[in-house]
């Protein structure tokens, strides 16, 4: 109860003081106007300062300024290369080494390319693409993906305090036995006060994808199957000490080979066309 009483008396007291203050201010209207104008000017100056410092880099060494500006570009590019290469490399594996197969089997949601198509008799026509062709197609896919992914708005803009230039994105993919190397050149150039900074090429080492080794497995399987021979998975796996697991599924009338490296998640799968007899 005491507290409540105290609270009420304070409240009335404050109302009273506010009333007195208003009366006082009416008498000081001219001064207030000046203060407001000064405040507005100060606010503009602060905003201008912020703009000049952060956007135009006024007072910052050009190299550092450009470095700061380049950093988000680089991070964005790295995010892109990671996500794009993930998609591209996984899709290549799941689709039989072809990003957009012409003839494919829809299997568990994946379009799996027929890497051996029917021929009369037991033979089949080998459609395995060469490593070079796969690399080239991966390269194109990553380049396209990067172009779609990178945020070019991170660079420049109308009020940018530097000059900038975008080159065309290019990439190089190298399939090794135990890994895939991806090199993406995203030529972003920023220049300010005769200082130029270029975004270093981006490099990705996917040692979790031993695609070269898996390609050899696919090659060996198709060499056998293309000429009408059987491919025995167990001796092959044992011979390679289980380095690659080979599973065979047979969605009628086709066959699907699923190859996984030991203790890794990457999957390469392809289909062999069968005959619905």
């Amino acid at each position, binding site marked *: 109860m005491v507290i409540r009483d105290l609270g009420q008396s304070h409240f009335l007291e404050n109302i009273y003081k506010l009333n007195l203050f208003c009366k006082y201010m009416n008498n000081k209207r001219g001064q207030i106007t000046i203060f407001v104008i000064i405040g507005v000017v100060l606010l503009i100056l602060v905003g201008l300062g912020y703009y000049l410092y952060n956007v135009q880099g006024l007072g910052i060494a050009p190299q550092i300024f450009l470095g700061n500006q380049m950093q988000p570009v680089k991070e964005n590019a790295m995010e892109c290369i990671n996500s794009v290469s993930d998609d591209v490399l996984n899709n290549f594996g799941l689709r039989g080494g072809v990003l957009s197969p012409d003839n494919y089997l829809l299997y568990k949601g994946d379009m799996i390319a027929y890497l051996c198509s029917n021929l009369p008799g037991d033979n089949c026509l080998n459609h395995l693409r060469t490593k070079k062709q796969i690399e080239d197609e991966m390269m194109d896919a990553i380049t396209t993906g990067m172009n779609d992914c990178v945020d070019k708005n991170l660079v420049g803009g109308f009020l940018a305090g530097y000059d900038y230039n975008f080159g065309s994105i290019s990439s190089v993919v190298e399939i090794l036995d135990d890994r895939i190397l991806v090199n993406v050149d995203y030529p972003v150039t920023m220049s300010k006060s005769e200082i130029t900074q270029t975004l270093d090429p981006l490099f990705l080492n996917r040692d979790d994808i031993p695609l070269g080794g898996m390609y050899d497995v696919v090659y060996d399987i198709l060499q056998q199957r293309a000429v009408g021979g059987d491919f025995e*998975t167990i001796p092959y796996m*044992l011979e390679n*000490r289980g380095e690659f697991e080979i599973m065979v599924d047979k969605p009628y009338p086709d066959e699907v080979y699923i190859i996984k490296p030991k203790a890794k998640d990457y999957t390469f799968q392809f289909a062999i066309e069968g005959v619905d007899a």
Partner: protein
Amino acid sequence: MKLRALFQIVLIIGMLFSVYSVEAANVCCERTVSGGSCEYVDQTQCVKGFGATPTSCDQVSYCQPSCCYDQNGDGYCYANYPRAACEAAGGLIESDSTCESVDACTKGCCVIGTQAAFVTEVRCKAESAIFPDLEMDFRKDVLTEAECLDIVRSAEQGCCVSTDATCTYTTKGSCEVEQGDKSGFFSGKYCSQLDFCSCAPANPEYGGDGNAENTGCLENEDNVYWFDSCGNQEGLKEECDYGSGFLCGDSEENDEYTCENLNCFETSLDFEDYVGTSLDELGDVVNGESWCMYDSEDMDEDLEPGGKDPIGSRYYRSVCINGKEINEPCADFRKEFCVDGTVDIIKKNNEEGQLTEARCVENVWDLCNECNTANSFSMDAFDYEEALVADEYCCTDRVTRDCSWMGRCVPKVSPGFKFWESEGADICSQATATCPVVLFCNGWNALLTTCDSPVLGGFFTGLIMGAVGAIVSGLTMGIGTAASFGAIAWATSGGGLASNLLAFVQTAPRGWILVSGKECLSEEYLQSINNICRAHGDCGADYNFLGEKSIDGFLSYGEIDPEVEYYSFLREEMMKVNEGKDYLNLTDPDWEKGVEFFDGIHEQKDPSFSQKYLSFLMTTIVGSLGASVAGTAFYGYEAGWKEGLRRGGGPLGLLVSFLVPAAGKAAPIVDAAVNEKSVTPASQQSPALQQLTVKNPPSIFGLPPLKLDIGGQPQVASEGGGQVVKIDSITGQPIYEVSAEDSLEAQATEASAYKSRGSTLKGVTTKIKGENNVGQEVIADYKYNTETSKWEVIPETIKQIGVGTVTGPLQQKLTGLIMGDANSKVVQGAANAANDKLAAERLAGGVSTSLTKASSAGAIVGSAFNGIAWSQMVYGIVDLAAAQTEVIQITGTCNPWVAPRETDRCEECNPNFYIDEDEEKTSFRASLACSEYRCKSLGASCELLNKGSEEETCVSISKYDANSPTIVPWLEAFDEDYRSFIKEVSGGLEVTQEYPIYSTIKIGIQTNEPSQCKMSFEHSVLYDNMPSYYFGGSNYNYFHEQLIAYPDTKNVTDGEFLELTKGGSEYQIFIRCVDAAGNTNDKDYVIKMHVSQEPDLTAPVILTTSVGEEVYINSGVNETEMNVFTNEPGECRWSWIDQKYTDMPDTNTCKSPNYPDLLGNYDCLFSTDGVGDIGQGISGINLRGGQFKDIFVKCQDLAGNYNMESFKVRLKGSDNLLIKTVLPKGDIFTSERMFNVTLQVGTDGGANLDGSAICKFTSQETLKNNVQGMDSEFISTGNISIHEQPLYLVSGQHTYYVGCYDVAGNVVYNQTSFSILADITAPIVQRVYEDTSTSPTIVNIELNEDGFCQYSLEESFKYGEGIDMIKDGNVFKVQGGEPRYYIACRDVYANDMNNVVIDIM
């Protein structure tokens, strides 16, 4: 004209449309837009300018299979590669599509340093090119991979010590260091054994501490090895037996390598319902072991006979690899089946063991029918048996075909068909079989249509026979004179009665008789046909792989019409052979039944002689004969046997009476009994009569003369002359022909018996043979003279046949001639004729007439039996003539199997069906994939949904299903902490526990059938009108789990996520589902939940930072950026000391945005000076190599909760990374086209102060300051300071840029340039001249390049053996004055030219 023009316009427009309406057809594209070659695709996919042929690709030239390889490419040889694809890849084409005869594709051993690979020469070349220092070593003579690997294994190994004391354990061939005291190759020594190698041992055998972390595996080796501190192997630690399932590995990733057990400990074999190869005796399933699994025990391929595979069943192979079981289905529709076998193995510990191996093999079933040549209908029994033997031999030839013998050759593994499309009808029909059942019905039953009811038929027959019998018995009983008969008559009549009775009993009650094919009516036989039927494939009545039965594929008794006469009989017969069961249809297919019928011959048979003629024989012959005998006996007792035969002997008696002229020997017996007249012995007969015409007795139907057995005395008609008495056909008078068989005595007796009954015999024809009338016939009348008791001819009635009445002397003569013996022969013959006449009259005039004429009891009884005999003959003949034979083909029609109509087991096809709520498998079937074939076998309404997706599901889609899916909560889908707060309410569920804001919520529902569900925030929206926000995806599933994330902004859906409004609200999600039949929920299913008003009382969780928990700092760097990631928005601070959040410097505060990043985290940044939401970067680090500092991070959420404990980040300092040397440099001369160079970089300093770094190189200048972008890492780099890379380079200028970085991110770059100067051509003498301006003169030789020259005056020589000439640039001088000079030069690349001879003229 206008009309015509209009028509043409319309026609043209129509044609245009018709042209454009043609759909693009599939063609074989030489090149497709997606980069493929020889693909049979839509024409629009073809690249213009390349081939596009509207046929399959094997028909076009540019896609013919070839062997494709690239001599300078990747080294692969592609067999059966399309030509166009090969050209597109830039390969070389060889016509041998198998590549076997292509030299470049022959495999051999490719040795590259310490490695070896069994590859083609082309590939060896490509692989070797990676290591320019190494020459390609391809050994064609090595034929196997094992032999190839042994080449490297058996190579001499030891420690290779370089001049800078770098020690590497390798092969001798790989060590190129010149041998010295402390350098070179030390064979058989590990590097840790050499004092001058600073490699600390790990192997206790060499003084190591045995730290298990210093172990590792070697490529292509099974065992675990020690590794010294330099990373060189140091001997065997543990021997692993890969054959027993052990291999070097570190699956725990703790750097401690061990022999890891690769065997499988949890497999399908563990399940109780497992069906497949039995591995009980083997214990563990070892690595590489494989076995068969299938759906039914009957599918074991070892079972004989086979063909018992259930519909929808499939074979599977399981493999144990790396401790994991892999299930591989054999081809569906049982195009393949699994076979297994065991091999003996010796394990590591010399224990004997067994290894099971299995594989899927092609099912060659379609050749089985070739071995069915035996045909019981077209072959006789012998040929049929022979054919069966040959068929069985053919059938069991497992090399050629996979068949099984069950009396017919059937597939050992019955193939599957798309039975739902009636596929396989032609195959099934091969098993359709017919079995003939032959029925016979006698004539009277057939006429009376009473075959089906033999009792009824017997009634009618009995009625007829009984009526006659009644007459017999009545008469016999009534007269009561039997006792007065003589014993012989009694016996004779008794015998006749007995035989008559026998005939009656045998023939009376007969209906349908089963002639053959009784076995066809049995269930066993039906089972036999059906079993053969279903062994042919998915045919007949059979069970599916879950044991559900369907009999619709097998039709039996298809030809039996219930309206036919024999229907009832057949059913009764079936009941007899089937233990009282009426098996008109097969009910339960059974493999165990009908086995004995597999080899049986089922042929059609005719009724047997006895079946067909029994009635006739018994009734007509036996019965009629019996009655005849009885009748004759009774009648003959009074009227004589001749008369008895004629009048009481029925048809047979009559026949006999015609054939027998006299009663013969029976007469005296009768005569004795009557005791009335004397009999003239045969010997006293007149010779004249004996000369009368002899007529042999005719045979009856070809039978011999009758033998009559009367009273036990054989009475054989005697042969000899006789008298003929005939009925004149013209006058209608009887003409009696008395044969010689009638004894004279009998004739006399008959005549005397007759005399009392008449007075005149008219028209008796007599053949006489006299002197003047030889062989002539005369006719005369006779009169009985009672006084003389003799027959006397009436002379005036004598007529000579063909002449007329005779008179005068001829008359007298004939009278005398006739009467001369009248009383003995002619007259008595005439009396016999009278008897026969009476019999004929009785037949013609009826019994009453006879009765009136025969007044005695014997005659009456005899007449009765006579009637019976006639009746029986008629009965028998009718019975035979009207008999009916029916052949019923019992057909087992084998049609494709039909799925059960009523089923609710479709879902049991899905592997998910056998996974419980804890996601544990409950059956081995959880490993068996469902397929359309398996699904369809479970029921006519079963359909496989979501084809081609990861969620293929077999469900029942019945048109009678009008029920929408039932939705219930799926508790397991909810977050574990909330499961106990889920309350089912009317029309949905409610999560009573509040969800904290900013948490990700998992919710789930379960439907009673596979369904597709949608969700909405609006209620009462029809399913089809709901937006496409699928609850748990668009597939048809039982279980639907949905993630609801980021409940912080607004009540909208976005992609797969459903976003809720801010906290403090109650949310309702309205769900409706649809099943595969299109039934949708009429009402919403509501999930109600609450999100907390006060988001949380707990501090945010610091998940990580952008630098992790430990980071090296670049040398010279005193500040760094850092992102902090948390689970909710807020702000974070860092400090050098661990203090309360509020005490941490304000400047070191960063704020995260209120929206999460892509991973759902909230992050804020500390960077440089820190502006706005960016906090002050971490500055003042000032660390050198070997030093570290910790910073402490704490965060506070928007509610003011902050961390009590800090997240610690350790910053580690580093020194500059330096590159000390980069080699080679300058010029390198060589006379070879390619030259081995080692690129070498020496580093120092860095994070670990020892120069350890990763170095890379490139030849691209643009990458010279981009270590990440550089092409290649040095082959030896990492924790070493000397980084080397062998290169194999062509001549020319080379510049390599190297970059190295250490763990702190210190990067250093450098480069080297060098030239490889190669000249492989010898120098040429361009000019020779003699300078005569000096004395002595000087001979000048000018070369085309820099070099050196020598000369000789005597003979040709090799460079090095001559005298040096004076070099002046490219001009070489020698003193003149000699007539001849031999010159040899060498250029600076050491190319020698041949001698040049210079003659000075």
